[in-house]
C-alpha cells in the first residue's frame, strides 16, 4: 500500500530509529510528492513525532537515509521549516509573540546578524496570516493555548520555506481557528509548497489532505487519500482498538461530527 512517486520532495529509505535500543520506527521506506498537503495519522506512540524528528536529524537513526529535495538535509536546511509540538517549550519564557515569530528568521540570518526591519515586516505579516497581529506585543505567557499554537505556526511561516513539517498544529485550537489554519495551509500548497502535518482527527482527514501516511511503528500505507484512507488500512493502523474503530467507521459515514476521542489519553 506504499505508493511511490517520481521526483519526490522527500525520500526515506530503510529508516529505523530507536530510543535506548528499543526500535520505535521500523524500516520506513517512502517517497512523497511535491506541492501537496500531506497528513500523518496513527495512534499515540506510533512514532509520528519521532519520524519528523528523524527526518530533521534531531535524533540519530540506526540505519537508512533521508533525502529532501534530492539532497542531504544540511544543504537544504533553510528550505525546510518545522513546528514542534506546543508542549515542548516553557511558555513562561519572557518573550512576546513577535519575538518568537522573529526566531523563524534566525536560520537565514546566520551568526552575528541582527533581525532587520525587513525581517520584522515578514514576522508581522506571518502573524497577520494566522490572525495574531493584534497580539504581536503580547507576552507569550499571556496567550491561550490556541493562540500559542498560532504563534508557533507564524514562526514556521516566517522561515519562508518550501517544505513544512507540523506536529499537531490543530491540538487545542477551536473550530474557527482550525478552519483559518487549514485554509492557510491549502493556499500554501496551491503556491507549490509542501506541508506535512501530524493529525489526530480521523474524521477530517479526507477533507483536509491530498495524501496520507498511516503509521504505527511501521509504515502501514502511504498514498493519495482516496485510495489509502480505507477501513482495512485504518484497522491495521489502529490495531486492537476495535471499538474505537467501529466508532470511527460510523463517523466516517456521518459527515460533520467532531471526532476527537482518539487523541485523548497519553500525548507526548
Amino acid at each position, binding site marked *: 500500500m506504499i505508493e511511490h512517486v517520481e521526483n519526490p520532495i522527500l525520500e526515506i529509505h530503510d529508516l529505523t530509529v530507536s530510543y535506548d535500543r528499543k526500535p520505535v520506527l521500523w524500516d520506513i521506506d517512502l517517497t512523497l510528492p511535491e506541492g501537496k498537503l500531506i497528513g500523518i495519522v496513527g495512534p499515540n506512540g506510533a512514532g509520528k513525532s519521532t519520524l519528523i*524528528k528523524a527526518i*530533521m536529524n*534531531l*535524533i540519530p537513526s540506526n540505519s537508512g537515509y533521508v533525502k529532501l529535495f534530492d539532497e542531504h538535509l*544540511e544543504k537544504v*536546511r*533553510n528550505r*525546510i521549516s*518545522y513546528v*514542534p509540538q506546543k508542549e*515542548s*517549550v*516553557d511558555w*513562561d*519564557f*519572557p*518573550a*512576546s509573540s513577535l*519575538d*518568537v515569530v522573529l*526566531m523563524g528568521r*534566525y*536560520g537565514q*540570518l546566520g*551568526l*552575528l546578524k*541582527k*533581525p532587520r526591519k525587513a525581517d520584522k515586516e515578514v514576522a508581522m505579516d506571518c502573524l497577520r496570516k494566522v490572525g495574531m497581529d493584534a497580539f504581536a506585543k503580547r*507576552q507569550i*505567557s*499571556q496567550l491561550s493555548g490556541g493562540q500559542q499554537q498560532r504563534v508557533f505556526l507564524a*514562526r514556521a511561516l516566517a*522561515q519562508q520555506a518550501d517544505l513544512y513539517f507540523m506536529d499537531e498544529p490543530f491540538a487545542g485550537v477551536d473550530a474557527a481557528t482550525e478552519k483559518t489554519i487549514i485554509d492557510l495551509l491549502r493556499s500554501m500548497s496551491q503556491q507549490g509548497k509542501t506541508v506535512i502535518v501530524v493529525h489526530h482527527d480521523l474524521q477530517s482527514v479526507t477533507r483536509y489532505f491530498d495524501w496520507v501516511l498511516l503509521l504505527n511503528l511501521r509504515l502501514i500505507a502511504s498514498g493519495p487519500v482516496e485510495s489509502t484512507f480505507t477501513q482495512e488500512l485504518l484497522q491495521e493502523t489502529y490495531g486492537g482498538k476495535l471499538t474505537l474503530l467501529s466508532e470511527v467507521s460510523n463517523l466516517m459515514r456521518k459527515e460533520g461530527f467532531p471526532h476527537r476521542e482518539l487523541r485523548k489519553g497519553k500525548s507526548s
Partner: protein
Amino acid sequence: MMTKEAFQIILAGSLVAIPCGLLGCFLILRKMAMVGDAISHAVLPGIVIAFLLSGNRDSLTMLLGAGLIGIFTTFLIEFFHRMGKLQTDAAIGVTFTWLFAIGVILIDQFADQVDLDQDCVLYGEIAYVSLEQWTTSDGTMMGPRTLYVAGTVLLLVIVFILMGYKELVVTTFDPVYASAIGISTALWHYLLMAAVSVTTVASFESVGAILVVALFIAPPATAYLLTENLKHMMVLTVVIGVLVSLTGYYLAVLLDGAIAGAMATMAGVFFLIVFLFVGVRKKRKVQKTLLTAPEVIPKHD
C-alpha cells in the same frame, strides 16, 4: 562622601555582579540555576592546579584553567546523566561536591606552596581590593588589579552576549527548533558554561564562592519576577547587581562584618522584598522556574 576605598570595593562588587547576573539570566531561563552553583564550586581544583603549575596568580592561566574545568564539569554532568541514566540534579550533586572536595584537599595539602586558604576561597578578599595595585614595568601605579580583571571579564561577557544573543535566546527557549534551523544547541550550551566558568574564577578571588553563587542566581531571579521581557530582565539584573554591591557594602560597614557576606545577604533581601510584593501574583511561575529539576542536557543537536 564615599571614600576612595569604599568606591573601589563597590565598583569591584558591581563589576563582578553584572557579568554574573547577565549569564545568570540565561541559566535560570534554562532551568540550570544549579549548574551555575556546581561550576562555581567545581572550578576550585582548577584554580589550585593552575596555581601549582604556574606558581603565581597570573590571571590568564587561572582563567584558562577555569574555562577548561568548567567545560569538563559540564561534560561530566552530561556524561553521568546520559550514560548513567542518573537524574540531572543527582548528576550535578555528585560532580560538584566531588570536585570541590578535591579542591579543598589540594589547598590543604599544598598550603605552604599555595597562597590561598579556604576562608579566602569561600569569602573572598573584597575588603582588600585596594591593597593589591597593578604596577606597570616602569613603576606607574595603575590602580587595583582586581578591577582590571573584573572589568575585562565584564567586557568579554557583554561581547559574548551581544554576539550570540539570538542563538542564546533560541537555544534557551526552544532547543529542538534551534537544532532544526541549524543552530547547534550543544555548542551554545558549552560556550555558555565556559563563560560561566571564566566569570566565576575571575570573581572568586575578589568576592569568594558564596557571593558568586548568590550573584549568579538572586539578581536575575529578582528581575524575572519584575518583567516579562528578556531585555528588560537583563537591564534590571544589572541595576539590582549594582544595588546589591552598594547596599551590601554599607550593611557590612554598619555591622562591621564581612563585605561579601553582606552583599550576598542583600541579594537575598532584594529577592525577598520583590517576591513578597509582586511574587505572590507570580508564585506559580517562580516555583516552575526555580524549583523544577534543572534540564542540563540539550537533548537534540
